[in-house]
């Protein structure tokens, strides 16, 4: 027998279940006082650099019903394209920008909402730049492994056309599922788990 490699297997995922709010957003589900505020509730303050935007949307199941018990987390670069992460080695990001946000869907309407800034462009390994984008992670009852996708911005047509990830989506018509429509400073981004408009989900 050769030497064992000593490597481990990733802990397998299990669904967040219907009560995922208790652990992730306890104040949202009326468990007050354990900690002061829910983590990820605000991403910006008055000094955050960049263009202020809001992102709203809903997650829909295979029958077109809004998923009212999901939680959406987002992760994005600051206005100059730097991530607020120790793994960001190119420079220091905006100290007034968190980069990460978490929002439970509204229990009646299913809407999620983030107040953030438009991210800058981030390099692509091997050269070039990615189009401005936000990474999303979605968990809910019935989702066995958190779903990854990305939001791109409809008003960034030139950058989107050269984005290496978007360009790999085939057929090209599905690229539109990752593009948020703009109205003023508000972007809307609905996510479809199944059906003819199924969102492109990512194996990252």
């Amino acid at each position, binding site marked *: 027998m050769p030497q064992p490699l000593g*490597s*481990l*297997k*990733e802990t*397998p*995922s*299990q669904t*967040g*279940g219907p*009560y*995922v709010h*208790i*652990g992730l957003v*306890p104040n949202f589900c*009326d*468990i007050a006082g*354990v*900690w002061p505020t829910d*983590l990820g509730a*605000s*991403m910006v*303050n008055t000094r955050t650099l960049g263009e202020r935007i809001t992102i709203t949307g809903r997650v829909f199941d*295979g029958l077109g*019903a809004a998923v009212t*018990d999901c939680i959406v987390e987002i*992760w*994005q670069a600051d206005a100059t394209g730097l991530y*607020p*992460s*120790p*793994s960001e080695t190119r420079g220091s*990001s905006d*100290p007034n920008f968190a*980069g990460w946000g978490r929002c439970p869907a509204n229990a009646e309407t299913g809407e999620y909402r983030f107040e953030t800034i438009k991210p800058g462009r*981030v*390099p*692509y*390994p*091997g*050269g*070039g730049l*990615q189009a401005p984008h936000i990474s999303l992670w979605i968990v809910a*009852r*019935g*989702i*066995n*492994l*958190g*779903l990854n996708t990305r939001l791109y911005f409809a008003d960034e047509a030139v950058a989107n056309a050269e984005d*290496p*990830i978007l360009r*790999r*989506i085939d057929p090209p018509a599905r690229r539109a599922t990752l593009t948020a429509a703009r109205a003023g400073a508000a972007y809307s981004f609905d996510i479809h*788990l199944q059906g003819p408009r*199924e*969102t*492109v989900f*990512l*194996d*990252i």
Partner: protein
Amino acid sequence: MNVPRPPTPPFANEPPETGAFFARDRQWHPAALTPAYKTSVLRSPQKALLSFGNTLSEMTGPVFGHNILGDLDNDLIHNYARPGEAAIGPRIIVHGKVLDERARPVPGVLLEFWQANAGGRYRHKKEGYLAALDPNFGGCGRAITAADGSYALRTIKPGPYPWPNGVNDWRPAHIHFSIFGSGFAQRLITQMYFEGDPLIPLCPIVNTIKDPAAIEQLIAPLDMAATIPMDATAYKFDIVLRGRRSTLFENRLEGN
């Protein structure tokens, strides 16, 4: 209004983690569509996922400082209880390490926990089980791993409970875990089960995982060495996050 400061590495003498992650073994994880767990039927993507190598967007991720934690955040027996009171149920310690696939400890990782009370009842408005609420039990907690990747929480052993799936399906006793890593691609939610629970092999959610060895990875053994005499039993639950590729002898491309 304040927002979290951009993080500094939790252990400043360690270089930051910057490599790309090993590909996720999706045969080890549950599939999206698992019909015996009925809710997955309408919530499972049906088209192929788009696979691509990690970019900075996946290799970076939020980290959280110990300053967000309160003294009782990892003590579910007391963090919702009235002063001088405590949650009802078998007192337990759950402890372990967060490691990566290369078996290295992962420090500075935020863990969030949630669970039912000792009767199997969650504190949630959508919960309809007839078991009683415990006025001294909220059911949430959190911790951040130490330099050696270790964490611990004190809680009561949750009860099993029935759930509307089949006519008579029961969840084995379990604690939910949410785990951050150093990169957004490591983000994970899972459930910890208790050694010896006869409901484990019967559970449709457990059985969304195909490989018996993967299921065993979610079962925490009784750990007598970590018990506190006359106080609490203990269970050990190690967690493995995706590892980063070694960059030994690797050509670094411009902009990578």
